[in-house]
């Protein structure tokens, strides 16, 4: 399972890098979204993978530490997901305004755009 996840994370990152390097600004935003997916999965894997073990303790008592998964990475992912969602929403609005303003989605339009 660990190997599969490692490959998936690697794939997500390579897709993200490929998209980030494209000229279209839409693909740039897609790249950012893929990057955050890859990162979230990576956070998940760092907690250690255990199947069939819930990340919480039953209400009636104490449980062996080997019987529960670490809940912290899941809490971290939840936070990172929310942040990633907000950022993706902002980025989409940004490229929409960019398209409205310049009439193109080509990143080459950015060159020489520095105020001088």
């Amino acid at each position, binding site marked *: 399972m660990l190997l599969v996840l490692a490959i998936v994370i690697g794939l997500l990152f390579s897709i993200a890098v490929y998209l*980030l390097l494209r000229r279209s*600004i839409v693909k*740039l935003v897609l790249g*950012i979204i893929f*990057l*955050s997916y890859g*990162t979230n999965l*990576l*956070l998940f*894997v*760092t*907690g*250690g993978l255990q199947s069939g073990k819930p990340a919480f303790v039953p209400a009636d008592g104490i449980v062996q530490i080997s019987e529960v998964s670490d809940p*912290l*990475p899941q809490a*971290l992912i939840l*936070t*990172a997901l929310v*942040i990633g969602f*907000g*950022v993706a929403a*902002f*980025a989409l609005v*940004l*490229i929409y*305004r*960019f398209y409205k*303003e*310049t009439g193109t989605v080509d*990143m080459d*339009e*950015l060159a020489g*755009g*520095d*105020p*001088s």
Partner: protein
Amino acid sequence: MILFLPVFLPLLTIVLLLLVRKKLHAQQWISVLASLAQLVVAVQLLVSVYTSGPMVAQAGSWQAPFGITFYADLFSAIMLVTVALLGFILVFYAIGLLDNERKRNSFFVLLQGLFAGVNGSFLTGDLFNLYVWFEVMVIASFVLITLGGTKDQLKGSVKYVVMNLLGSTFFVIAIGLIYGQTGTLNMADLAQKIANQDPGAVTGSAFMLFFVAFGIKAAVFPFYFWLPASYPSAPSPVFAFFAATLTKVGVYVIIRFYALFIGSEIEFWQQIVFVIAAFTMVSGVLMAASSFDIRKILSFHIISQIGYMVMGVGIFTITGLGGAIYFLVHNMLSKTAAIMSGGLVNQMKGSYNLKNLGYIYKEKPLLAFLFLIPALSLAGIPPTPGFYGKLFLIYGGFEAGNIVITIIAILVSVLTLFSMVKIWNEAFWKKPAEETDSKPVSNMAYSATAALVVVLLLFGFATFLLADVFFEASAQVMDKEFYINNVLKITAP
């Protein structure tokens, strides 16, 4: 509880501001009062940290390595006071200078969001919480930099947004790796766990990722290209806020991390830090020398001056690091003042381009003076604070035997003087190619700039009294055990 106030106050202010969304006057008053309250809290925090040592608080009463720790030592408190002071002055500047459309579109709300993020980053003692505050700060800045939506702004902000998101991603990946290796996110606990042992491949690469992430935020070589492309496109109050806070938080975190987590590998990191500092200083100042736009020159200078701070981190003696902390504060004040007076020039003449400007000294000698003081301070002429900042750094550098980097720093300051003189000559002194009519300058923004310049001068004069505080702060930062004991002592039963 006072430790949570610097974060809580801006968040509360956001709620209040949203309640009076439609009423611009109410928004402005609330912002002014809130900034004043933040300043009072920050000063109180500094006084109590100075008299009775660092303060620690645990969120939700979860004990130290498990809960989120808030920690304030002298360094954090100094940074909080500086940011609060600048915030207080800049709110008036923004009220005076910013156009009503931007003000109505939640400018003041976003500003408080920015402060919440910045103050949180200064206070937190938890890695993931630091990431959250970074995001609060960065998202507020995303909206601030695009606010108004002109073509230039959108072009600049695309670069800004993408680079900062990449930085954040590196940061989270590093946090994940660290957590997987050590099982802790508390900075004191982590420093204790990895102290005096070979970090190994995973932890080592995590720290390299941290360095890249903060390097992007702090705009050091070779990660700084987003800064001159994006900052100048924002209106001058926003530009001033960004120059005062964002990159400086990056430097703050670099100093913290360097002191806490770099143990046995200090020689390796010192080499990296020196090389990066040298390239940052030199490339920033050279690009500033070749620009002909006030905003561009000033934003390349931000980069160049970041190099000095990073150099202080590399020297890592009490004098060197104290110099870096002093330089950080001086730079926040001087740079902001220079940008503010640049904004006034633009309001008066409608241009930032040096080729179109001229004779401002003849028309408004006081405005010329308001630019001259921060410019001399940036170049390092006594008795401005810039002189003392460079003095401490250069003295520290020679004392520690880092000759090459110190000589580079001295040469860069000559070039800094050159580009400041260029702005002075072109904008204030020379006869313009064609005389243009001057528009009236906002009095409130004018007075705010004057107030900051007065603060800057007082800070310079008071250096003899204040220097000890900075060296004390530097000693506290450098003492890793001090930090660990202070944070973890509460947990001892």
